[in-house]
């Protein structure tokens, strides 16, 4: 892979400690990660491995307890439109129509109505929701809501799309369709995607790089480049070989904790 001068995101020795009543929880311990523009990275791991914490630090919702998180070499101080988040439970604005949800970011940036409309039209088409432009979120299926959430982030010119188990609440068929659509969007727009999941198969299907994380304390276990050609076939022997390797890494901490 061609190395660009500056990685889009750099995580340097990042730890995150939470105080829960009188307990100290090490959600993330000494994480190092460097993400290049255009990569599709999946963070996988069991619950408590710190994958969501790491994602939230990249988003700017949480600050590291120690270490630093940088975007284009500058510290990530807070949420910013250049880093869009897609939440598992959508977090759409229920009082806004599909159109207004997608236009929320452009409108917040102070663009004029005509310009906002143009942007919204473009992204509403991209995610195939033109027929539902005036519907409210509660009238949509889970898959459609997540399409709106993705369009909302893209409409805001995000360079980095952070996705926190975005398809975890969807049924299998909808999930497959959205995975395909997401890959399609990624290939066309050359976005950088960081995608959190606990499903190994989903990670291998989507990512060009899979970061395996393990809990107690949450840390990065391994960083794996995948050079499987696309479109990927979940039933192929190559796919399953990778799945076996990653599953073994994912469960590597069990031996240590047991006994």
């Amino acid at each position, binding site marked *: 892979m061609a190395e660009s001068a500056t990685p889009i995101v750099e995580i340097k020795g990042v730890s995150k400690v939470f105080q829960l009543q009188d307990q100290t929880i090490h959600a993330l311990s000494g994480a190092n990660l460097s993400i290049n523009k255009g990569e599709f990275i999946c963070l996988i791991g069991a619950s408590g491995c710190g994958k969501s914490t790491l994602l939230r630090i990249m*988003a700017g919702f949480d600050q590291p307890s120690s270490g630093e998180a940088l975007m284009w070499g500058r510290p990530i101080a807070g*949420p*910013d*439109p250049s*880093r869009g988040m897609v*939440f598992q439970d959508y*977090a*759409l*604005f229920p009082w806004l129509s599909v159109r207004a949800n997608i236009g929320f970011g452009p409108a917040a940036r102070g663009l004029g109505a005509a310009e906002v409309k143009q942007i919204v039209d473009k992204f509403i088409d991209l995610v195939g929701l033109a027929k539902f432009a005036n519907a409210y*979120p509660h009238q949509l299926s889970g898959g459609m809501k997540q399409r709106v959430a993705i369009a909302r982030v893209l409409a805001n010119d995000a360079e980095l799309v952070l996705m926190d188990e975005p398809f975890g609440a969807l049924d299998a068929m909808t999930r497959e369709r959205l995975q395909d659509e997401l890959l399609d969007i990624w290939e066309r727009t050359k976005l950088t995607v960081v995608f959190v999941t606990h499903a190994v198969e989903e990670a291998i299907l989507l990512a060009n790089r899979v970061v395996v994380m393990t809990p107690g304390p949450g840390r990065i276990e391994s960083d794996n480049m995948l050079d499987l050609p696309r479109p990927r076939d979940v039933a192929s022997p190559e796919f399953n070989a990778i799945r076996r390797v990653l599953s073994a890494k994912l469960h590597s901490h069990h031996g240590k904790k047991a006994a």
Partner: protein
Amino acid sequence: MAIVETGSIPAAAPAAVVPRRAARSTWARVKPTVLALIVPLLLLAFWQVATTQQWTRLIPTPYAVGEYMIDFAVGGIYDDAYSATLTTHLLASMSRVYGGFALAALFALPIGILIGRVPSARMLLDPFLQVMRPIPVTAWLPLSMILFGLGAKSAFALVCLGAFYPILLNTIFGVRSVDPKLFEAASMLGCRGNAQFYKVVLPAATPSIFTGLRLGLGLAWFVIVVGEMTGVPEGLGAVIMDGRTLSRTELVICGMIVIGLAGYLSDRVVVALGNYLLRWSPNHHG
């Protein structure tokens, strides 16, 4: 291993079902009305029996009350001091109900938003308001008459007080219970700081605020009789108080019915308005 297809889905249901379904849909349409009328009609029947059997001599028959209601509304039967005065009294009460309600909303909304969003405002005002809240409007009647005098101003103040707390409490609840994810979503989309108040807090709180306004208006109708005990010449509460003093029970019952109907219609209008304004909200179709 083989996959066996287990035959197609059985053909559509037989045609005989169709007329039954049509009959059911007619019933489904009238069912709410029929069910809603059962209890009032039973009550009316009981009232009829109780008065014709002379279980009490102090309550007039439904027919007498009906007749009086017509006289109260348009006159021409008894032609006494209350004939054809319904509109006057209703308008007087409505002006106090809506006026008092509007004044209550004017205070309760900003105070509620302040208490809900600003911790020091909560510490300053919340304990005081929690102590004041259990004091019923009736208990305020004497003080209100001292402070605002006999008459309309006092009635206005009591109605306002009655409507104040439900609006306040629901506003506080609404602005405090915004899903934290929505703040994160707004801030990652570039909407930060004070802009979030208008773009996130207020719209997210509207269902709650609306519930508060609806309860407040209901309570305004509820306390109008107490409010008009302060010696106002016109108003449905005043009519009921006069009826009591003059031992004219039919007048009291007419006043009660008019308040009930007016309050009900007023609520339906508010609900219709809410269904339209809050059509985005899945659990707000009353």
